[in-house]
């Protein structure tokens, strides 16, 4: 049983190769809306419905996702329907965004802060992160009071924990061992 990410990767890479020629942003938003559509419970029901012909399913997804899908994008949905891989659309969108970010030299950073941060603070933080990771950083800031103090930054798998909560947890582990 392969994992969804593994199944999604070839599709995402194919879509990315296509999109590099035209527009990455359009493909990204299109995949995002397609993923949102495929993720709903109603659409899951349709996908599992054996009475629905592949043509009908394709039309349904394209119709719900928006009329501004290009021919290539519509064909992409068609391929997914034919291969019965509509359910991996969320993963495809995710991998596509990762590929796009790597291509553009941008990385997403999820910043969690105990208190709300003003623009100057965020800017200096992003500047520091850009220096450390040698790439552009797209930061999304979220206020998490549970951190007690400080910030916790997640960039991909890498996590910089400078929060009071993280330090307390580290202290607890050190004392127990």
């Amino acid at each position, binding site marked *: 049983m392969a994992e969804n*990410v*593994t199944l999604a990767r070839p599709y995402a890479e194919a879509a990315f190769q296509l999109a590099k020629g035209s527009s990455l942003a359009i493909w990204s938003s299109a995949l995002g809306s397609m993923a949102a559509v495929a993720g709903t419970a109603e659409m899951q029901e349709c996908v599992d419905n054996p009475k629905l012909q592949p043509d009908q399913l394709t039309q349904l997804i394209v119709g719900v996702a928006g009329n501004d899908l290009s021919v290539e994008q519509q064909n992409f949905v068609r391929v997914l329907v034919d291969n019965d891989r509509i359910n991996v659309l969320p993963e495809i969108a995710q991998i596509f965004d990762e590929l796009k970010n790597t291509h553009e030299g941008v990385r997403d950073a999820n910043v969690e802060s105990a208190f709300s941060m003003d623009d100057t603070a965020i800017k200096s933080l992003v500047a520091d992160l850009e220096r450390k990771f040698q790439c552009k950083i797209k930061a999304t800031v979220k206020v998490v009071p549970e951190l007690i103090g400080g910030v916790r930054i997640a960039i*991909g*798998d890498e996590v*910089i924990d400078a929060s009071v909560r993280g330090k307390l947890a580290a*202290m607890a582990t050190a004392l127990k061992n």
Partner: protein
Amino acid sequence: MSNLNPSEISDLIKSRIQNMQLAATTRNEGTVVSVTDGIVRVHGLADVMQGEMLEFPGNTFGLALNLERDSVGAVVLGEYEHISEGDTVKCTGRILEVPVGPELLGRVVNALGEPIDGKGPLNNKLTDKVEKVAPGVIWRKSVDQPVQSGLKAIDAMVPVGRGQRELIIGDRQTGKTAVAVDTIINQKGQGVFCIYVAIGQKASTVANVVRKLEEHGALEYTIVVAATASDSAAMQYIAPYAGCTMGEYFRDRGQDALIVYDDLTKQAWAYRQISLLLRRPPGREAYPGDVFYIHSRLLERAARVSEAWVEKCTNGEVKGKTGSLTALPVIETQAGDVSAFVPTNVISITDGQIFLESDLFNAGIRPAMNAGISVSRVGGAAQTKVIKKLGGGVRLALAQYRELAAFAQFASDLDEATRKQLERGRRVTELMKQLQYAPLNIADMAVSLYASNEGFMDDVDVPKILAFESALHQYMKQKHADLMNTIEMTKDLNKDAEAALKAALTEFKKSWA
């Protein structure tokens, strides 16, 4: 929880707080995708290393074993019931380490080196990596010092040297553990530290071994590493490596150590379980492809190392001393099938094997060693001189006896020479019997072998051989203590000693009638 010492604990906490690093660190994190019987799949952890320790919530640790494209397969060390999907997993950047050092002697620890004997904390100063690479060819020395097992049959026919790997193989209930435990008991005062690694055994069996070691004063120089049947497969898999690391501490400091892996069949089973749950392809007998490697890399770490290696390991503190780690791996066969996968593997890795057979065991020959197929490939060079001199006859007598015994059942009248060989063989077989927990020292063993070789036992009734032997030992201890001391110290039998021994035996024969 007993004997909590408040001051000690505060000190412990203080030192830990002082040594704590609380700077903000960058760490790799992932999320648990699935948990199946102690095997965890983790998404993320892009920078994880093979064999790296992972930190799970609830003060639990694991080992990263499978690095795949989109996930990491890890095995949880210890309890895993509290880990659930979506939990955060952190890289630690470290390889699993266990405590090492003389503080562990006399203690019973689990596979992670945590004490489980209720005797309080270990107070160890050092820890070391569980998985280490064995010393290379340059750093080794040939095996030329003996490990006395104290069992006549083994010391005379399959001698084990310091740094050797000698397999103990046999069906269940053939006395495999007994041979190993007797060897540990016989190391008292020999300067050999012992490690007994119990893998997948009943906790009650382990408790029995510990009690026996304690009774015979052997626990003070022994470390018991226990991964019982109730421990997770990961603990059973890791236990031999943990024990080996504890033994290497002594080896690398110019001391001698002996390690018993009881038994590696169960370790292979545990590894098979882990591998199948990690979805590695099964091979012969459903073992994974690297089941040979798990045993070869473990047993390769048992070695005799040179002075240079010891000097290197101790940063020049210990000079001119060689170290050794002798391994006695145990393999349990099913219905005597030594051609199964794991037994053949371990036979080919080790420097010889001691075959124990149920038929012999049930016939009352204990230790139930089959002398015909038991060998020691390097021990000959290490054998104690006096035993080597006297033990050669035993092997020959038994070999001739086996050849004739089958044949003699059909022939009614035999010639004198054949009859004599049969009689001698019967007596030697009887003489090789030995009680459990009664290891013999070199001098006693030499006297027994000499008496048999020189025909002093030929006119003793076969059932009375052991009584004759113990009376002889008593007599020698009382009347010829000097001679016995000389043999024990020089470990050799020169012309004078031999003459004295012969005279003593003749004298003893007169009184024993």
